[in-house]
């Protein structure tokens, strides 16, 4: 098979084959879409990277309140900035493996309780200092100490002790966790000199680019860091991230050549945009999902028959077709899909079934008063439309759903995780354990379905410490099935990340972790000569 793939790749390099043909043939060989897409890109870019130029990235999710402090970044544009100037210990690759970065190698004890990260030599911060194990330790301390306001605080909670030992950074866990490197690949955990204690928002890191101009909500400019250690990144001389929050403004800026790449292309116009000359729309299935969440401890949602009725009353295929325009996959009322390692694809897909919905609704003994679903467009793109579709499909089963549109402003603090039935978005996590621990553990901070079961908790913890992949997969499969049949989450769809890039950009490869190559396209791509 490898020979055939090589042959295909050579045809692409020679300009004999289009992307569509290549993808079709690669799929026939049983290669997954992500791998095939990236093979195509590599082949098409065989001319090799070009250095120099100013690469401009237009992105949504920026605001004048943004900061360069890695501990408090939360939306995509600030994450992109942090990724541009900073370097992490390890990264999660597009294929779901761990890429060593500042850590040269990662080793764990057999029980997955003690982890040793060997620090790479000769990596330099922008202020001229060399990166040491001490800097790594201080960084992790800043994100996990008592005063921390870091978004990564929850991830680091299982750490019992950390120490720097010569070139090694050593972590001891209270209970074993086979996924620790994935947790440490979190975008907040950018290594800063002395952990960034004195000036967290100074924008000094060990990344490919130095900060030149920082104008929150407008633009951020970077120039290549001369002493950057990795020759395979940082091809452009300068990088600029431009805040383009309006979807139409983003596409217009790309089409008129004012930026080279954009994220969050509206699914509704993606096909229309792809027809425009000199640019390509790229999409990749990811772990992010659009959901409607019910509090399982609040009436009427404490009645599983009613939850099932609502789950059968939602038309998932129609939502993927109309809200995502095919740029996404079906949800199955659990937070996991094929983007995760150890996913069990034998769990049956739930479909829209008016008869079953009506039957469960009758069994639930609901009094027929309207069931209020709270939504805002800020919950996920198209949330209000999705709710309107849900209302219509539920009506067909005789379930009285009433939509209440809430202001975008304040939605995440006033409605989500506060009201018993509302729309929400989960960006997904690199591994199943992290997804379940974040939202479905009794003690989880963001248990937005109020799902509290001791047996479920025990299974999550058992899977975390389990080192045999087959057994682990079995436990995750059970967790998924339980949530699907009894949980408070109605998951109609998983959204693709849809990017668009100009013809001038080389080196683009899809990455299912986050849009625009896990927010790193600006350091991995180059401008063709």
């Amino acid at each position, binding site marked *: 098979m490898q020979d055939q793939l090589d042959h295909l790749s050579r045809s692409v390099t020679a300009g004999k084959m289009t992307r569509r043909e290549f993808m079709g043939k690669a799929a026939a060989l049983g290669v997954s879409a992500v791998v095939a897409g990236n093979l195509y890109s590599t082949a098409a870019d065989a001319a090799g990277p070009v250095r120099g130029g100013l690469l401009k990235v237009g992105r949504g999710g920026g605001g004048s309140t943004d900061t360069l402090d890695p501990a408090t970044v939360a939306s995509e544009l600030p994450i992109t900035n942090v990724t541009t100037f900073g370097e992490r210990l390890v990264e999660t690759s597009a294929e779901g493996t761990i890429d060593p970065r500042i850590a040269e190698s990662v080793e764990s004890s057999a029980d997955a309780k003690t982890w040793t990260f060997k620090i790479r030599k000769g990596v330099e911060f922008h202020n001229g200092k060399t990166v040491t194990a001490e800097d790594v330790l201080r960084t992790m301390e800043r994100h996990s100490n008592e005063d921390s306001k870091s978004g990564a605080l929850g991830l680091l909670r299982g750490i019992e002790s950390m120490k720097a030992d010569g070139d090694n950074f050593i972590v001891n866990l209270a209970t074993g966790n086979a996924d620790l490197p994935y947790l440490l690949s979190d975008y907040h955990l950018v290594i800063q000199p002395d952990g960034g204690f004195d000036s967290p928002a100074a924008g000094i890191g060990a990344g490919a680019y130095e900060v030149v101009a920082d104008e929150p909500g407008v633009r951020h400019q970077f120039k290549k860091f001369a002493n950057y250690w990795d020759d395979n990144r940082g091809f452009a001389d300068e990088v600029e991230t431009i805040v383009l929050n309006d*979807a*139409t403004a983003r*596409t*217009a800026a790309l089409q008129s050549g004012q930026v080279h790449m954009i994220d969050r292309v*509206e699914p*509704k*116009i993606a096909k*229309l945009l792809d027809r425009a000359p000199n640019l390509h729309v790229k999409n990749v299935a990811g772990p992010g999902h659009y959901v409607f969440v019910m509090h399982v401890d609040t009436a009427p949602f404490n009645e599983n028959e009613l939850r099932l009725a609502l789950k059968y009353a939602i038309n998932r295929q*129609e939502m993927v*077709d*109309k*809200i995502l*325009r095919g740029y996404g996959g079906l949800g199955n009322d659990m937070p996991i899909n094929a983007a995760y390692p150890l996913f069990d694809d034998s769990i049956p897909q739930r479909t829209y079934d008016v008869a079953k919905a009506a039957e469960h609704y009758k069994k639930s003994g609901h009094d027929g008063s309207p069931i209020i679903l709270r939504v*805002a*467009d*800020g919950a996920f793109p198209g949330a*209000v*439309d999705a*709710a*309107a*579709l849900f*209302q*219509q499909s539920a009506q067909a089963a005789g379930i009285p759903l009433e*939509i*209440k*549109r*809430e*202001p*975008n*402003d*304040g*939605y995440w603090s006033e409605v989500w995780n506060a009201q018993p039935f509302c729309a929400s978005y989960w960006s997904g996590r690199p591994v199943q354990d992290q997804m379940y621990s974040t939202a479905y553990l009794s003690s989880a901070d963001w248990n937005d379905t109020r799902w509290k079961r001791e047996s479920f908790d025990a299974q999550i913890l058992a899977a975390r410490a389990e080192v045999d992949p087959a057994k682990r997969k079995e436990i995750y499969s059970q967790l998924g099935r339980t949530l699907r049949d009894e949980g408070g989450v109605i998951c109609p769809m998983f959204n693709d990340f849809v990017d668009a890039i100009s013809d001038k950009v080389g080196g683009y490869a899809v990455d299912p972790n986050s849009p625009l190559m896990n927010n790193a396209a600006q350091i991995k791509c180059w401008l063709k000569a």
Partner: protein
Amino acid sequence: MKNIPISAQIGLFFTGIYFFMAIFAPLIAPYGVGEIVGDVWEPASSSYLLGTDNIGRDLLSRMIYGGRTTIFIATAGTLLSFVIGSILGFFAAVVGGWADQLLSRFVDLIMSIPTLIFALVVLSVMPVTIPILIVVMGLLDSTRVYRLARAVAVDISVMEYVEAARLRGEKTGWIIFREILPNALSPLIAEMGLRFIFMVLFVSTLSFLGLGVQPPEADWGGIVKENKEGIVYGIPAALIPAFAIATLAISVNLVADWVLNRTTSLKGGRG
């Protein structure tokens, strides 16, 4: 009818049609307002005269129901703001002194707060229902009307005929309604036509903030917003409601212009 100029006839015709459709919406609309009938953004066909919208609802039906919401809220809001704003404005101008200062400064104060903050605060502490929406919008807008009404009335209230009325010992109410109102009508009516449009646009701004009418109900501005991604690719679903707002605006103002002419001729000028 013969005396009505052609432009006013056009205005009356369109305004009439829109109001008629608004009142009899359930009888005219071929489908329900939230009913999913087809695919996304289908072109116009015999079953969907204007095509379908961004999630496959019949656009014509949504336009008819949306017109109902838009016209009703905008009309009620405009009337409310004019009644409150102009009466208080005239009152302040005629009475003058401390009452004038107090009212004017209070209005200045309200107007000086950015509307966004104002709308968010007010509507976040009150339930969003259509009557409350109308009252809030009417009150916010009445501050603008107040300023104009007062400015016009101050000029009039120093005229000889008002002085004369005062010397005759007429009551304030009489002066406001019999002397000031007829002479201040033209700028007020011109303003009313425009305020009506602003009100239509304001409803859609509110639904954009998540404070307007609740889905699946529709308003014209909201339909534009729902379909806005398609604008630049020539998808008619976004352009039709915008066209409807524009024609409604022009026809209402054509009528306003006609009324304006009639009121100026009523004043005994040469017309």
